[in-house]
């Protein structure tokens, strides 16, 4: 990630390709963009840096015509324009690669691309062009594959190729690397540099500082809907960029050593499961072991069996009793409630809908999973106990909300996650499974959650964390395994591995087979 940015090829005194002046967008509860100024030249890779909720995505949607600004001007190649809708943006030469892909699962690659092009309908001719363009830019694609069968990285290629076929002058990428392996990120950067050298301007939205430093020529930093600064990333340090982004220093976690006895608590052996969902991933012979006082991290890109593994661990799907063992007791055949009774608690990836019922109050949501802890007596609810439980949770875990009566959906992502994690911790588990603990959570809440998990593990709880954020796993975990294509690699102490090795495994290549054999290693797990 230390490659310096290539020399900026376009003449810098040229007319800017895109210039925004005073862009403002108000929503009923929040000013998403407040007088934003932004200038991008031809061939420039320009970063838009900011936390979740800083207003980056809204700004990009305004440029792409998906949202209309309340005030401000957009100048395109020196001419003032009103971009009324995405097809108009495309006609101007603006292409966008979305953070959550805008692809159609049951259509083929070429059909997906045809839908976005304003040209005569000729799938065969288009397929040939897709092949040609995708090879030229090092983004290999099979035009006839159905999108649901593609990996996340391949889907992103479809989106990029779709934009490239429209010969854009400006390409917007919204958090493009959140779904990529470190190797794929490097490949993507090569493609982007090549496009920039051909004169394409690129708006690169991210909150990952090192990526911006290695790729971008210039950066606009946003916080709370406002521009807080512009910078040349290569002349900044991650700390100085972070200060501009979050207004203070990046918080760091403390990871003390565990002093107790590291006995296995949660053991999985020979777990295989083929889901009913045709879009799901089959789990193949998973084996893992989580010990007292440690955090085991499972790296890998979502869609490689993460959802299925979580369901199998939590008890949403059940199987043979011996595949999941909790503190010596086989629980593989037990449902989620029975596993919970035996001391296994869970934090699912979807906070709203799985982790909490959106319209219900925090107290009621507490009752749903902590009912075994005095909140229900002889089948009758004890609202006072639930209220107290939720209140304690809110105080202990610094949940900012309107109190135990607040509806779950009224909380921000970070605060709801703190409540859910807190609720699970208060059930005094012996083992806990957490999926994407800090996804979509602001930096402060993320640091709090990470420290909470570390402290919990050091108190003797076995914790399993499934996450897409490699940096997070390296920060909080003791050992890391990789889940790729439904197979789990052997867990390795984090000191003995690095992002590059993990990245290789994320592409399904497990290290001890020298990258040639795709069979996983789990004999000694």
């Amino acid at each position, binding site marked *: 990630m230390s490659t310096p940015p290539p020399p900026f090829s376009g003449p810098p005194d040229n007319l800017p390709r895109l210039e925004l002046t005073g862009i403002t967008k108000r929503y009923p509860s929040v000013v998403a963009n407040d007088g934003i100024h932004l200038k991008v030249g031809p061939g420039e890779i320009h970063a838009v840096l900011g936390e979740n909720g800083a207003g980056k995505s809204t700004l990009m949607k305004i440029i792409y015509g*998906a949202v209309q600004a309340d005030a401000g001007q957009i100048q395109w190649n020196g001419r003032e324009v009103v971009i009324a*809708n*995405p*097809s108009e943006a*495309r006609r101007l030469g603006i292409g966008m690669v*979305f953070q959550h*892909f*805008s*692809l*159609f*699962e*049951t*259509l083929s690659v070429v*059909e997906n691309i*045809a*839908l*976005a092009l304003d040209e005569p*309908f000729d799938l065969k001719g288009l397929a040939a062009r897709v092949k040609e363009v995708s090879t030229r830019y090092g983004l290999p694609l099979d035009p006839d594959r159905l999108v*649901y069968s593609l990996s996340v990285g391949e889907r992103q290629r479809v989106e990029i190729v779709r934009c490239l076929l429209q010969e854009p002058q400006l390409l917007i990428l919204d958090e493009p690397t959140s779904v990529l392996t470190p190797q794929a990120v490097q490949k993507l950067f090569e493609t982007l540099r090549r496009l920039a050298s051909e004169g394409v301007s690129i708006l690169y939205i991210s909150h990952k500082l090192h990526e911006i430093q290695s790729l971008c020529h210039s950066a606009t930093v946003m916080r709370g809907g406002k521009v807080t600064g512009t910078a040349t990333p290569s002349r900044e340090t991650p700390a100085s960029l972070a200060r501009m982004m979050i207004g203070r220093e990046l918080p760091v976690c403390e990871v003390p050593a565990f002093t107790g006895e590291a006995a296995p608590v949660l053991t999985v052996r020979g777990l295989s499961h083929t889901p*009913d*969902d*045709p*879009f799901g991933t089959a789990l193949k012979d998973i084996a893992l072991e989580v010990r007292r006082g440690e955090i085991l991290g499972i790296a890998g890109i979502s869609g490689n069996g993460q959802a299925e593994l979580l369901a199998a661990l939590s008890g949403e799907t059940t199987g043979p009793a011996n595949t999941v063992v909790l503190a010596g007791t086989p629980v593989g055949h037990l449902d989620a409630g029975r596993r919970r009774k035996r001391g296994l608690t869970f934090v699912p990836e979807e906070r709203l809908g799985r982790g909490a019922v959106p319209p219900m109050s925090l107290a009621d949501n507490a009752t749903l999973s902590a009912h075994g802890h005095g909140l229900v007596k002889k089948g009758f609810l004890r609202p006072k106990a639930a209220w107290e439980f939720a209140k304690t949770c809110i105080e202990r875990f610094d949940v900012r909300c309107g109190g135990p009566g607040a509806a779950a959906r009224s909380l921000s992502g970070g605060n709801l996650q703190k409540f859910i994690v807190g609720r699970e911790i208060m059930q005094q588990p012996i083992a806990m499974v957490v999926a994407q603990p800090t996804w979509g959570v602001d930096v402060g809440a993320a640091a709090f959650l990470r420290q909470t998990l570390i402290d919990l593990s050091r108190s003797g709880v076995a914790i399993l964390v499934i996450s897409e954020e490699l940096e997070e796993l390296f920060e909080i975990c003791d050992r890391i395994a990789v889940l790729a294509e439904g197979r789990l690699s052997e867990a390795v102490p984090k000191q003995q591995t690095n992002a590059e090795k993990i990245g290789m495994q994320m592409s399904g290549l497990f290290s001890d087979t020298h990258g040639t054999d795709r069979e996983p290693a789990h004999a000694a797990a």
Partner: protein
Amino acid sequence: MIEHLIPVLAGTLAAATPLIFAGLGELVAERTGVINLGVEGMMLIGAVAGFAAAAHSDGGALAGLPAGAVAGMLAALIFAILSLSMAANQAACGLALTIFGIGLSAFIGQHYVSYSLPGLPPLDIPGLSEIPVIGRILFHQDAVTYLGLVTFVGVWWVLRKTRLGLVLKAVGEAPDAAHAIGYPVIAIRYGATLFGGAMAGIAGAYLSTVYTPLWVQNMVAGRGWIAIALVVFAAWNPTRLLLGAWLFGGVTILQFHAQGLGIALPVQFLAALPYLATVVVLVLISRDKRLLQLNLPASLGKPWMP
């Protein structure tokens, strides 16, 4: 033996025609993510409008079918305004439309009870209708039955081969994504819903002016529900829908003949047989969950607003 089979098979095609029209219309609407449970109601409204138009003009069935189409489309428009523009629950709107259709057709139809129309004579396709056996089955039908098959080919071709078909599917699959790349999701859903209404209206008008050209209250008799079931069990595939419609038509005709031959089964059971047979066979066919999930329009029945 052949002599007995010819009228059965020929009758099958005619009996399947209303299901083909209504089913194809609903299939197109569902492809875009709109589930309209008002098919039965739209068919009844189409039936009574078609009957009235045929009874009060010289055009007969030829006036009845367009009138049915327009009436069905207007009924679908009510549904579309509620469920698409106002994002009301589609199931509730559809059920309300069916109940409304039953009531409205009975109210208007009370003047026509037992009134009969001339119907539509079979149309022989020159040359082809003289082929032995096959000619009398396939090419000795009323014009609307041919029109139904032509509509089937048209819908199949559009869905399979054209950009429009792809857009319809895309809108049903992921309206957000379709909106993001610039397709007018609501307008496309309106179009598909109105097409569904027109097709249901034609199906109803065919029943009242051609198939049994005599007004009987509630004469659609659940065929709208069968059409909806056919669409789902056919996994949103027009060819399977056609086969399902023929199956229903075939059993309908067979049980008529069975009644005529005095087979010792209760008439009520025989009358229920086509519905029973269709549902059972289609459930068996569609036990392939994968097939259903792959073809199910992912946004089916979910209100969507830009």
